[in-house]
């Protein structure tokens, strides 16, 4: 097999466009496809957010009717979670994991192709429901019954789309585990691997654990609607709250699925631009594993107001509060990496540091939400909306942007424009805080979630938030422009090393990385690695 592959490489191997992009199995190409798909979905989901914020700009209903507004909130979330954030991290994983461990490709390259190509079909199906007579799903991305069962013709399409996305994620996760466990080059011990590989390895186990649970939950919705079951219908002996348990058993690990790779990205970037090793590498790995484990036993903190018994509320409160400990360890370790380093502040570092500050703010509101008696006032208000947007936008999305700026020179061979990158960072940071910080105040003042209109007392912060939304949305056009310029090759040529302080196998290959890398395993010199020092 190996000799056959080597002989194949020696040919003048020029696949046509369709062969390369539709039938290809190359991890770099598939990574690129995921990332471009994610960028498109980010703008589509973002447009929906702008519809929402436009309606909420002033009290009164000016632009859309409440039914359509509910479709926008629902589909905005589904697109951003399943179409933007998750595929972006899969794309980053596909591109970088084989390079980081010295592997020639992912373990299962053909399955990798399918994992990607399922997604455009799934999202076409999901987005098409917005154009149906009965409209798209409007019961929230969480699809709680009985409300979600009142949906029209869109329901089966949404459920089918979710199944497809789930299958894509599960196959991707299997691929990541198989690759990391089996294809590391000799000398690339698990505890010498980049943190990004560790966070993705752990995330992959979370995905395999919980995506089937989501599949079960939405299938039960389907059978309740069409096949006379009563899983969630009290009249038939069922319970709507059982759906919430099943959904959030998936849903809580899901949010960690969306943040663990972000932690990995930041753990790569900060040491590079501090020119200092990551503080506490092993503690970072164990903290990530603890967070993943704890994420399975906290799900009911999304449900504190359903009427749970006191003992249940106390258990979930304590377990949720505990997650603050390993998360705190990570934040302190990042700051300790910076301490006594020699920092420069190129765009990837700006986004990484912005992540640390603003994700921590999101973590604070998360800790507040964990306290059950206080949560009775915060639940289902804009305080929750502020919390999860801080951890997902200034958290996950900022880390994806950090990763893109960090690795674009390796992918495309050219340096992005540092001026445009910095402009993108500062504009995004200013506007994203205008957008989401006031939402903490709105929630504390009493504004519920998922409402298209509000009392005039909530006007001022809503207006500020909407201005922030439009500013933030427009600023992302700079990002798209930066990416397009690099893809077109417009910029200074990048070296293999790219960044002065960068360490790891991925920086030993040329920029742009050749189509096939590490076709024979590299001989690893520990000094080239970020964590090659065994005394770590």
């Amino acid at each position, binding site marked *: 097999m190996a000799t056959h592959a080597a002989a194949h490489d020696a040919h003048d191997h020029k696949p046509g466009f369709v062969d390369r992009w539709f039938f290809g199995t190359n991890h770099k190409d598939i990574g690129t496809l995921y990332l471009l798909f994610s960028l498109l979905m980010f703008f589509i989901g973002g447009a929906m957010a702008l519809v929402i914020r436009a309606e909420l700009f002033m009290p009164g209903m000016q632009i859309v009717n409440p039914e359509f507004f509910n479709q926008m909130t629902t589909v905005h979330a589904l697109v951003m979670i399943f179409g933007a954030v998750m595929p972006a991290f899969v794309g980053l994983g596909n591109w970088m994991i084989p390079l980081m461990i010295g592997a020639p490709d992912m373990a299962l390259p053909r399955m990798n192709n399918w994992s990607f190509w399922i997604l455009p079909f799934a999202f076409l199906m999901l987005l098409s429901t917005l154009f149906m007579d009965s409209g798209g799903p409007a019961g*929230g991305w969480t699809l709680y019954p*009985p*409300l979600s069962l009142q949906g029209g013709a869109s329901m089966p399409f949404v459920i089918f789309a979710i199944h497809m996305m789930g299958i894509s994620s599960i196959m991707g996760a299997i691929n990541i585990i198989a690759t990391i466990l089996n294809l590391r080059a000799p000398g690339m011990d698990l505890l010498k691997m980049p943190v990004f590989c560790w966070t993705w390895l752990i995330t992959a186990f979370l995905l395999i654990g919980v995506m089937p649970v989501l599949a079960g939950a939405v299938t039960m919705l389907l059978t309740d609607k069409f096949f006379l079951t009563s899983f969630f*219908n009290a009249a038939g002996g069922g319970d709507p709250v059982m759906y919430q348990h099943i959904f959030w058993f998936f849903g809580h690990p899901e949010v960690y699925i969306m943040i663990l790779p972000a932690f990995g990205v930041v753990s790569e970037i900060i040491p590079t631009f501090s020119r200092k090793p990551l503080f506490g590498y092993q503690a970072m790995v164990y903290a990530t594993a603890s967070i993943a484990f704890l994420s399975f036993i906290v799900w009911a903190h999304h449900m504190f107001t359903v009427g749970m018994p006191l003992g249940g509320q106390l258990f979930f409160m304590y377990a949720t509060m505990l997650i603050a400990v390993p998360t705190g360890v990570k934040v302190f370790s990042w700051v300790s990496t*910076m301490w006594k380093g020699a920092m420069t*502040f190129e765009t990837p570092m700006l986004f990484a*540091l912005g992540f640390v500050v603003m994700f921590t703010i999101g973590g604070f509101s998360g800790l507040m939400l964990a306290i059950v*008696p206080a949560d*009775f006032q915060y639940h289902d208000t804009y305080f929750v909306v502020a919390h999860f947007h801080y951890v997902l936008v200034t958290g996950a999305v900022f880390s994806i942007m950090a990763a893109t700026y960090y690795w674009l020179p390796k992918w495309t061979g050219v340096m992005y424009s540092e001026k445009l990158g910095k402009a993108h960072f500062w504009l995004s940071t200013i506007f994203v805080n205008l957008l989401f910080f006031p939402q903490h105040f709105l929630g504390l003042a009493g504004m519920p979630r998922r409402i298209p209109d509000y009392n*005039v007392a909530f006007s001022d912060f809503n207006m500020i938030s909407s201005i922030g939304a439009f500013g933030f949305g427009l600023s992302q056009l700079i990002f798209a422009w930066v990416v397009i310029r690099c893809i077109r090759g417009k910029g200074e040529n990048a070296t293999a090393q790219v960044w002065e302080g960068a360490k790891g196998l991925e920086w030993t290959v040329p920029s742009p990385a050749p189509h096939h890398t590490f076709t024979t395993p590299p001989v690893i010199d520990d000094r080239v690695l970020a964590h090659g020092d065994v005394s770590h």
Partner: protein
Amino acid sequence: MTPRRVLAALALLAMTAMQAQANPEPWQLNMSPGVTETSRMVYDIHMLILWVCVGIGVIVFGAMAVAIVRFRKSKGVVPARWSHNTLAEVVWTIIPVLILVGMAWPATRTLIHMADTEDAELTVKVTGYQWLWRYEYVGTGVNFVSKLDRQSDRTRMLGSGLDPASVLDGDGNVYLLNVDNPLVLPTDTKVRFVFTANDVIHSWWVPALGWKQDAIPGFITDAWTRIDTPGTYRGQCAELCGKDHGFMPIVVKAVPREEFDAWLAQKDAEARGAATAATAMTAGDTLAAVQ
């Protein structure tokens, strides 16, 4: 927002003893302490965790700021090589655990206090509908629906041309926070609520009382309150329930006990009178049987 306004708002936030509010105020930054012992306990624990988070934030962001200023390559610093400090790692694991225990203790106490719905003097059954609330005073014939007031409803229509700022009541602006028939409750009385729903999940929330409770079709959930101060307290549905989720508010009118008793007796008499009249009309010649 002018700098003076910001400072005033911050000062307000710093005050621990705050004026209870019945309705949201413009530029409101913080939760109100509310009008029950429970709501004040909730407010206190909210402030406790808020200050803990502010304190930790000051330390972490302060360290980052110092690092960003001092440890720059442009200043010619040589980066250190260390990546461990066992003492630091132990300290920053243990101290957060202690802080969490410090927060968990009052939180547990508050939760236990809120869980005790026994020995109520009055029970109100609340039923959530798409898109209004039904209130029933258990043990009486008083049972009525409470829905969005007409002026708010007309104003909120898409492109109505009507101004939300002109939906007023004695209280001030009550756009989307007013109903035709408020829930009248006595002050200084332990009131137990039982909740259910007719169709989908709703959630009954009056911030001044300090909690919200989901109303689930086919199931019963409960809560309790003891309102200290007479007044009108407004809230909203807090679980997405369809297109008019934002348009089914809650108004609680808390009045002194004697006033409440009189009101309830009168409503009860009206209800029974209406019931008798209704049954008389439908029962036809069996009038004697229903007397």
